[in-house]
């Protein structure tokens, strides 16, 4: 079949989520003609997500109607190199998006910044605890970009989202009620924090009694009428409880459609094509640059879209997959520990704690919002002394109320039978008397956790599937166990709590399991840095090997921090776009010497 070549564009953007639409907005306004290719369909917050139809737990939370289709693309999974990786035949552990807005339409909206020390993880730990503190089996490294450099961009994304929260460190000055551990902020949150239900409030009171430092979770569920810097209008959250996995028809959850797409869609430099599946990126004869991308259009015909510059915004996993099938960058080989594409894949280490109240506390768990929580950050990053602990990293502990939907939310005390009469009674008796605590922990990178191509299975387009080799590193099992103990201490301190139980998904005797949902926080595989031997892109997000390819998303993270990724990855996106506009586009060349 002949591939049809289309007219050249300045910038080709692959993917229409937070990163892709933001790249289009910023670059179109900088005079660049932008073409966005999105594999999924067109949809809109106003027409596609309205209640009550959107409030269909089965369809959206359990049949994944908004998410990607594994029949078209999936990956294979194994815990270690001795196993045969097998296809992820159903979605489970993570839920990547597809369609206008990407996963950004069905996220929770928990909107974080990294700690300053997170971005210099290796040098920070070595300086505080000595050169050998990070064991040789960990490939933890610095990001090559500092908190001070990212701060204006982190701040800007918070304003794009109309973030609701309470500053804890305003320009170096401590603020009561906020996160005392955060890096200095140039501005407070644009909107006041969310209203807290009783469960989260009791958690905060218990934590405060224990000398810990609770604060409201920073949220992209907006708390009052708000206009963002692009001119988008957002409305106050109704605490409807159909938030993560659902779109928000109330215009209350910041999503890339209302916050970005609507503000750029009519711009003369902007064009978007839906049902446009990018198959691979093409390279120039000398291999030094990319020339454009081959994609299948909505009629299933192969097109070649030539471009001067390419922005890879296809989500962490699919960016790496596209690099591997296109021969961009040098693939990582765990045997020789050389190469970079696929190296340092990591995830998120999650443990849960259930606290059950006596009959006097009624939680009404159906009143919730994706980012409705009270948090302590006392055990995140290096906010606490690690010298005697034998691990690096940490996480936040939150009490959250966001998913009290009855198919998925059936908390029962430890020892309840798995089904039958007693189970039924326990579900009925505890639904309205439960607090949901989570330990949201970091994930270190190791030489044995990585992404490459599968030798056996292919996707609907005949390309080899991505192969994920991942298990929880020893470091993270220890960290998660330590964290879960701290969370249980707070849970036991909470008023009116009668029983407490915990589940650590990274417990010592468990392996990473692709079935239960954990987080859609797949990170690494195309990491940022200052050394081409250990990173795919330089500190500006530009590929070392192909200077006209810029990479966006959580694939840039050299290891995962204890926070949700979208705040940090959007900080990086604005940082990259800033350098593209100022330095690269006027003079297209490598922005750093290899």
């Amino acid at each position, binding site marked *: 079949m002949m591939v049809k070549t289309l007219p050249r564009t300045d910038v080709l953007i692959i993917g229409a989520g937070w990163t892709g639409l933001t790249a289009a907005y910023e670059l179109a306004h900088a005079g660049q003609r932008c073409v966005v290719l999105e594999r999924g369909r067109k949809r809109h917050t106003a027409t596609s997500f309205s209640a009550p139809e959107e409030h269909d737990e089965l369809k959206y939370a359990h049949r994944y109607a908004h998410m990607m289709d*594994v*029949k078209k693309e999936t990956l294979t999974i194994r815990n270690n190199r001795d196993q045969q990786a097998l296809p992820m035949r159903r*979605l489970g552990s993570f839920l990547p998006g597809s369609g206008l807005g990407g996963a950004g339409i069905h996220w929770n909206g928990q909107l974080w910044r990294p700690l300053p020390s997170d971005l210099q993880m290796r040098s920070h730990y070595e300086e505080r605890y000595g050169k050998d503190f990070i064991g040789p089996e960990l490939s933890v490294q610095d990001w090559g970009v500092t908190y001070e450099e990212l701060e204006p961009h982190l701040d800007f994304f918070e304003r794009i989202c109309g973030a609701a929260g309470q500053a804890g460190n305003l320009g170096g000055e401590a603020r009561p009620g906020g996160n005392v551990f955060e890096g200095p902020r140039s501005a407070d949150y644009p909107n006041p924090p969310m209203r807290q239900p009783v469960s989260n409030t009791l958690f905060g009171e218990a934590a405060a009694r224990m000398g810990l430092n609770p604060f409201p979770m920073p949220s992209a569920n907006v708390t009052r009428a708000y206009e963002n810097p692009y001119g988008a209008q957002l409305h106050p959250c109704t*605490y409807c409880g159909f938030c993560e996995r659902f779109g928000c028809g109330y215009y209350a959850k910041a999503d890339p459609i209302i916050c970005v797409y609507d503000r750029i869609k009519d711009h003369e430099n902007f064009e978007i094509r839906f049902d446009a599946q990018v198959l691979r990126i093409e390279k120039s004869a000398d291999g030094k640059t990319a020339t454009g991308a081959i994609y299948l259009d909505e009629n299933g015909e192969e097109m070649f879209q030539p471009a001067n510059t390419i922005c890879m915004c296809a989500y962490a996993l699919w960016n790496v997959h596209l690099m591997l099938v296109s021969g961009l960058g040098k693939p990582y080989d765990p045997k020789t520990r050389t190469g970079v594409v696929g190296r340092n894949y990591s995830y998120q280490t999650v443990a849960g704690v259930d606290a059950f109240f006596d009959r006097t506390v*009624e939680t009404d768990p159906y009143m919730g919002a994706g980012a409705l929580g009270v948090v302590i950050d006392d055990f995140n990053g290096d906010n606490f002394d690690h010298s005697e602990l034998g691990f690096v990293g940490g996480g936040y502990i939150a009490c959250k109320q966001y998913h009290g939907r009855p198919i998925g939310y059936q908390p029962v005390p430890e020892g309840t039978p798995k089904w039958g009469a007693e189970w039924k009674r326990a579900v*009925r008796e505890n639904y309205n008397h439960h607090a949901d605590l989570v330990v949201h922990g970091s994930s270190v990178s190791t030489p044995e956790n990585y992404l490459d191509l599968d030798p056996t299975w292919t996707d609907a387009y005949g390309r080899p599937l991505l192969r994920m080799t991942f298990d929880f590193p020893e470091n993270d099992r220890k960290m998660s166990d330590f964290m879960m103990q701290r969370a249980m201490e707070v849970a036991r301190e909470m008023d009116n709590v009668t029983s407490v139980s915990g589940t650590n998904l990274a417990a010592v005797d468990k392996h990473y399991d692709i*079935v239960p949902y954990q987080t859609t926080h797949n990170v690494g595989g195309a990491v940022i840095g200052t050394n081409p031997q250990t990173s795919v892109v330089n500190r500006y997000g530009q590929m070392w090997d192909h200077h006209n390819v810029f990479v966006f998303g959580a694939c840039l993270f050299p290891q995962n921090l204890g926070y949700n990724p979208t705040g940090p990855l959007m900080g990086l996106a604005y940082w990259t776009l800033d350098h593209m506009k100022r330095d690269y586009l006027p003079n297209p060349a490598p922005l750093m010497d290899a």
Partner: protein
Amino acid sequence: MAKRFSRRAVLAQIAVGAGVAGFGFPIPHAYSASDDRPWAFFTDDEARWIAAVVDVFIPQDEFPSASQAGVVDFIDNQMATQYGEGDGLYLEPPFPAGVPEQGYQLEFTPAQLLRQGIEQARQLGEIATMDATARAAHVEELHQREGITSVLIAEIWKLTRQGYFADPIYLGNHDYAGWRMVGFPGAHAYYTERVDEHRRSVTPPPRGIAHDRGGSPFPPRAIRGGAE
């Protein structure tokens, strides 16, 4: 045969005005045992077997059992539509066995899994002749066995919870049985003013996507001959 599993017996009770006080709320649609609406996917034998199993998972107490709440109708409908046909399931060969952490690795769509799995399971025991205790033990044994019946039971358990608690537009959760049981108000959700009041809750009566105060207009089909 244990009476508690029989839809017909329950319906017969209603018909003779024997009262439904045990349910905690009235059942508005009393279908007679002569209900002959066909199943979309199941045979009558399969439907009886499924009804017995789902009622092991969620037996009747003050609230309806799974089959009384329409869970068999829900599963029947799911098997006849996209989910049962394998939507959202990558089914490319080969199919080597893996470890549990790698998830589902059979070559069957959910509909094929149920059809073949039920056939195998029925060869391993006559659930119809068992009392409630024996049924529970039998289901447990099917779950512990190596092979397809274990996957089958896990799948039916998942579908049972979905059917008991999903919006009634999918034919389960009849009369909002599941939602009333836990106190879930449903699809119409505006809580800005209430969320931080911290007072004892007065949960509004449930209302689903179809705005129907009584739940779906389609009551569960009668399980002909009673749940096995």
